[in-house]
């Protein structure tokens, strides 16, 4: 295989088309005629950051209700159109942005985009549907309350980001969901939904000019006066000492454990050295050093790995494991010892070389499907990485040194200032 071929499988300026429409919507598109299908993905500025503490979960409630009926179509009509052609469309909510994702056969892209546009611009929030949805959300929250993994993550965020919007779950709490009225939903939609800041990617069996033409037809005329500006994040107060919390869930046979600290933002210069270091710590091979110590050597857990969550604001760097309730302390001690080793010694030359090869080698695999490419294009746009980011990716990876990884580890991880969350019996 030539390098040329490898290159051509990665999206870049030669085959990604980007256009900003007059109303502010950015369109990114790349053709793939190997399969007769197409994927759309995108985001817009309406995340849970705008939610008050009293009505936390509002943004999520709004996006969940978008397809429950519009001024033109009922809930049943929307899904009849969509499902009759084997297409799918859905919305989700994050802290900063809300997003959408859908797919269809290429011949049904106009339909998919028209349903997207209708849901985004004309939702009716029918009363009965809002109440049905509320009952479904409440059940989801009841199930979350019993899920050791969900609850450990939630408690971890509460400790690490206390006093900061990142400490709050996007889907809210039962008492906040109960307070949200239909008027709240309509008001949130009027104030926060609009074309400014919206990004849409289309990847699949459609030519770029045709994809853009279709987006223009569906959403090019959307104008909103007074669309609210994105909010600034307050400053994060870092932990001054290790804080542990055990959230009791009775009757469970396994506990979940999350241990960690803050990590870089996506645009921080340390991002690449942190992800490479994290790969050594708890990803590479069978869940890296953490997997080796907790699973392979001690047999304490089926899963034990580390992850880095780096976005617009301060990120988190965490180790997660599912262990028997009686082994929580043992696993936790092993993990903290590994973190300490990571901060004291960093990574070896061989470990770093392995992780670099892993990052560069796996890139074409992550672009195997249209969804993978669409995700890559969103990543480029969201963090302003440049259309040639994936062509230059190997260089970005290879310029990281052992010293960079060590300095990054020391900058972010202090084993005396960890957040430790446990959920289980």
């Amino acid at each position, binding site marked *: 295989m030539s390098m040329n071929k490898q290159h051509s499988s990665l999206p870049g300026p030669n085959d990604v088309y980007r256009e900003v429409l007059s109303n502010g919507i950015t369109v990114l598109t790349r053709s793939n005629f190997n399969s007769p299908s197409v994927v759309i993905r995108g985001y817009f500025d309406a995340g849970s950051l705008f939610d008050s503490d009293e009505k936390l979960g509002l943004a999520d409630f709004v996006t969940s209700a978008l397809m429950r009926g519009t001024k033109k179509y009922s809930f049943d009509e929307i899904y009849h159109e969509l499902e009759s052609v*084997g297409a799918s469309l859905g919305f989700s909510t994050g802290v900063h942005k809300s997003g959408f994702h859908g797919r269809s056969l290429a011949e049904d892209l106009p339909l998919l985009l028209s349903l997207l546009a209708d849901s985004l611009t004309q939702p009716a929030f029918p009363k009965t549907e809002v109440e049905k949805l509320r009952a479904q959300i409440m059940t989801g929250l009841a199930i979350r309350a019993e899920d050791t993994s969900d609850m450990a993550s939630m408690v971890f965020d509460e400790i690490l980001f206390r006093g900061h919007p990142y400490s709050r779950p996007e889907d809210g709490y039962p008492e906040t969901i109960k307070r949200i009225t239909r008027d709240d939903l309509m008001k949130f939609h009027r104030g926060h939904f609009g074309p400014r800041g919206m990004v849409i990617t289309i990847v699949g069996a459609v030519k770029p000019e045709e994809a853009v033409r279709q987006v223009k037809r569906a959403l090019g005329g959307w104008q909103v006066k007074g669309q609210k500006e994105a909010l600034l994040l307050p400053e994060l107060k870092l932990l001054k000492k290790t804080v542990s919390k055990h959230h009791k869930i009775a009757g469970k046979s396994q506990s979940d454990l999350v241990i960690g600290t803050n990590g870089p933002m996506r645009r921080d210069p340390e991002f690449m050295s942190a992800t490479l270091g994290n790969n050594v710590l708890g990803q590479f091979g069978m869940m890296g050093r953490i997997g080796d110590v907790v699973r392979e050597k001690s047999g304490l857990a089926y899963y034990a790995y580390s992850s880095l969550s780096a976005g617009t604001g301060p990120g988190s760097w965490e180790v997660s494991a599912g262990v028997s309730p009686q082994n929580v302390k043992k696993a936790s001690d092993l993990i903290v010892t590994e973190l300490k080793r990571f901060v004291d010694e960093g990574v070896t030359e061989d470990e770093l070389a392995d992780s670099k090869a892993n990052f560069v080698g796996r890139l074409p695999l992550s672009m195997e499907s249209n969804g993978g490419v669409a995700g890559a294009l969103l990543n480029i746009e969201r963090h302003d990485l440049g259309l040639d980011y994936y062509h230059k990716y190997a260089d970005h990876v290879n310029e990281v040194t052992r010293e960079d990884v060590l300095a990054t580890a020391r900058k972010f991880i202090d084993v005396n200032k960890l957040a430790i969350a446990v959920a289980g019996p």
Partner: protein
Amino acid sequence: MKNSLTIETLSNGLKVSLKEIHTAPIISSWLWYRVGSRDEVQGRTGISHWVEHMQFKGTPQFPANVLDKAISREGGTWNAMTYLDWTAYYETMPADKIDLALRLESDRMVNSQFDESEVASERTVIISEREGNENEPLFTLGEAVQQTAFRIHPYHHEVIGDMADLHTMTRDDLYSHYRSFYVPNNAVMAVAGDFDTDQMLARIKELFEPIPAGKEPARLARQEPAQNGEVRLSVEGPGATSYVQVCYRFPAASHPDFFPLSVLDSLLAGPSNLNMFSGGISNKTSRLYRALVDKEFAVGIHGGAQATIDPFLYTITMTIHPKRKPEQALAALDKEIQRIKEEKVSKEEIKRAMKQARAIFAYGSENITNQASWLGYAEMFANYNWFETYLDKLSAVTAKDIQRVANEYFKPQSRVVGTYVPVDGKA
């Protein structure tokens, strides 16, 4: 050269399926063994899954800790899975690195060590995996329903096995299971992606043909007798949410009724996706969603079957609405089942199900890993032709067929109904 399919059986009985796909510089290689939880007797339930775990613990050539790093270093992804009828191992790699995967799989077909201390540490890992499963209400309910549905047939236990057996199985049990089933004449090697067929076949022969054929492993064949009467059960556990599972008998994948029942499934609960790498679509206009979720008996509904060698189950799972009782949801479900037995479905509904199936197939073909998987997967319960003619067989289904199979298979006398009863932390 272009998307050609080659199927050949080597002199030692290993079946090889190769499909060239030149859309990306990627190759996906799958090795499928005809062994799964249905090949396990009491006392050794979960052994196939445990053997799968041990296959990651090393050979003299690729010691534990070396092989996982080797795959990652080359930018590959790999995994394995064990199910009722089969165990599969796959690697998807940059095209020029696939040789590592081929060498690794030929090596661990015969040379895995099953070191005593590795067995001991993996025992607690698998127990931990099972404890994680037990945290989920739908696992405990599903396990109870499955063991009730199968008294005779070895489909009766979960793939992970019973806790009692996970505590007592020995290294020799595991090793002997491995040696009995991991023989070339009990396996299918499926490779798809950016390669030249002649070269690939030659390399596979070079690596795998020296492995001698083994004794044809005998598979358990105790057929489940007909069920004469509905069985109901309940499972208690923590939480605040009730679930109901209703299981009907479903035919083998190779049975002609599998296809009208698949269309029926699409109408009732939305189209199912039988494969693992491309996902499905929503089911909000399916009959059961409209009757149960729209009418607020449930907050979620899922239905589906698996492609299996012997008859298995069609499972409908309802997450009960907080204001309803499980019996009310079950009564609403029964009304819908009755309706599909009595009233013929329209041609439009069948046409719609076909279009959905076509779209899901198209999504699956975006992905080389998925295409390679189907090459071998279909062989585990039928053959690759089953997959290639799947859409044609669906499109031959008539309204009459659907009504007939609804009446024949969706009988209350041959179903199991399980309820998860939440006891709110008091369990």
